[in-house]
């Protein structure tokens, strides 16, 4: 997987490059906005990580130009501008996700994985499957090892999101944003409680456990 990182904070960029290489990405790094746009347009990357404020051309400009030229490469904005407006601007310009600085690397990693997966599976699915766990999106049914499982609507959405991102780490913030549709900081680990409830329904009576907790990062649904 090739990533183009356009970021003018060299300290952050160095760290990100090292960390991203560590988790298996190939990373190119550029500082200047205009140079970044040219490179992104001419070479084939799997994902772009773009800072909002850059010398030469700002991040919004880069993404707008790329989208206007028909380039559909997933873009994740990095920015210190954390207001709702800024986020909306970023998404309207054609960004696929928006991460506010400073951020935990695990958060960035999880979001990159989610973006890459989204790029791969654009076709609408009607059935999701992870090991012996099956979800019918039309009938709103969940079956594990042939046994139907009753889920509350929110639990269904939670499981759906986890199954769509099976094998990837999903952070708590991502779940709050995607499943509950609210951006906020819970004071307690409410998500853990919901996960353990879900686990009670899909994992307790079955083997192996599919829903795992990744320490310091989030959760992962998949065969261990």
């Amino acid at each position, binding site marked *: 997987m090739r990533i183009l990182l356009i970021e003018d904070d060299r300290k952050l960029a160095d*760290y990100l490059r090292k*960390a991203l290489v*560590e988790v298996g990405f190939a990373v190119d790094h550029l500082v200047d906005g205009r140079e970044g746009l040219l490179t992104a347009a001419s070479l084939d990357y799997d994902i772009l990580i773009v800072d909002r404020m850059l010398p030469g051309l700002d991040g919004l400009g880069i993404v707008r130009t790329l989208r206007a030229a028909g380039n559909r490469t997933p873009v994740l904005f990095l920015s210190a501008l954390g*207001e*709702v*407006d800024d986020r909306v601007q970023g998404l309207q310009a054609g960004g696929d996700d928006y991460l506010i*600085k*400073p*951020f*935990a*690397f*695990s958060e960035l990693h999880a979001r990159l994985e989610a973006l890459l997966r989204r790029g791969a599976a654009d076709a609408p699915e009607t059935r999701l499957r992870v090991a012996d766990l099956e979800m019918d999106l039309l009938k709103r049914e969940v079956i594990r090892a042939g046994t139907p499982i009753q889920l509350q609507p*929110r639990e269904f959405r939670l499981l759906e999101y986890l199954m769509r991102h099976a094998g990837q780490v999903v952070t708590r913030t991502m779940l709050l944003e995607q499943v*509950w*549709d*609210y*951006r*906020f*900081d*819970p*004071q*307690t680990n*409410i998500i853990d*409680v*919901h996960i353990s*409830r879900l686990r009670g329904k899909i994992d307790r009576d079955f083997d192996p456990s599919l829903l795992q907790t990744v*320490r*310091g*990062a989030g959760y992962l649904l998949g065969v261990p």
Partner: protein
Amino acid sequence: MKWAGLGSGAWAELCRRAPPLRSSTFRLALLYVFLLGVSVSILLGFIYWSTAGYMDRQATATIDAEIRGLAEQYHQRGLNGLTTLIAKQVALDPKGSSVYLLVDDKLERILGNLDRWPSELPDAEGWMRFRLRERGPDQTEEHEARAQVFLLRGGLRLLVGRDVRDLEATRALIINALSWGLAITAAMALLGSWLMSASLVRRLEAINQTSWEIMEGDLSRRIRLNGSGDDFDQLAISLNRMLERIETLMTGVRQVSDNIAHDLRTPLTRMRNKLEILGAELPDAGAARTLGEEALADTDEMLATFNALLRIARIESGSRRAAFAPLNLTELVGDVAELYEPVASEREQRLEYRAFGPAWIVGDRDLLFQALTNLVDNAIKYTHSRGDITLSVGSDGLRARVVVADNGPGIPSRLRELVFRRFFRGDGSRSTPGNGLGLSLVHAVAQLHHATIDLSDNQPGLRVTLSFGLGKAAIDGRVTPRRS
């Protein structure tokens, strides 16, 4: 207990105007009216005294002249001359203003145009005041007369006087005129001072109102000048300069603390990332791993505190109103209840959600959600297991209300004002996790939405009521949710 300046309700209650009768300007005006009244009375009294006194002296002088004439006759021609002169005078003008009466020692009338000797006694100087009765064609008139009395030889007594009815009438006229003058002056002064104090009160009220708005948290407010450059404008200019200075200082302080939070956040995040990498390198079990995980948790806690501080600062600066949109509080509260229900049931608490119809307001749904989760989080955290937590939401057509009630230990009334301060932690909460910023954030969010927060006793427990003004959308009926 209402929270100062949180919303229009508390506002109106707190800034209930002082009744005009109690305003100092009106009292000052009354004092002015009183002093003016006294001086006008003195002036009018002097005018009265000098005009009425002058006429009085005129009357006395006329009587004196007459007496001098009669005395001359008496000295030159004796009693006969005197009676002849009196008879002549009476015959000349029987109903005139001069009054004569000559009586013998038994007070029997001898001569004159008076029927009988008046019963009044003369004073030491021989002056006598009495009522003169005059028979008219159909009624008897009475008016005042004034006379000098003399004792003549042979026990005869002579009364020489004057009917002073004109004097009396003029005096009454003067008194009447002067009373009217006094009354009109007093009325004008009263009206003038009322108008003057009303305009002063209005200008003071403007200053007062601005002060309230500033106390409400809007430091950018300034007192309006009326452009006349008068002393009120001067006062307003001085106050505005002072406010400018305070705002600069406050912003400075806030910026410093925000900058600290902001600047420390970056290295802390870097440290967190390094700890994470380090953790992955460490063997799965053992003391080093545990320490690493603890360090990671501590860093997360610090980051959470800084983030909360920065968020409060950003909310308080008011810039987040950009994300305001019509939203149904009932839906939002329902989501909060749904999100927290498993947490409550894990603690064997009952979380009840009661909705009384839709409650549309205009606001920032993420911030409101954050504020409500903070309240519910607190309720769950501080209520014993098997406790009851109730979340109710509804609108009465005027305001939308959200109530978070629990039957936990509650907050003593003396602390209720303090809990919204940053980093405030009650005695009982020191042992529970938290950074003391949760309620500060609720306060900031409420303020941003012009909502009031009311903390009350749930007997037992705490009852937090958030009261919002209804959104324009609810009134217009044009309702468009922001996010699908």
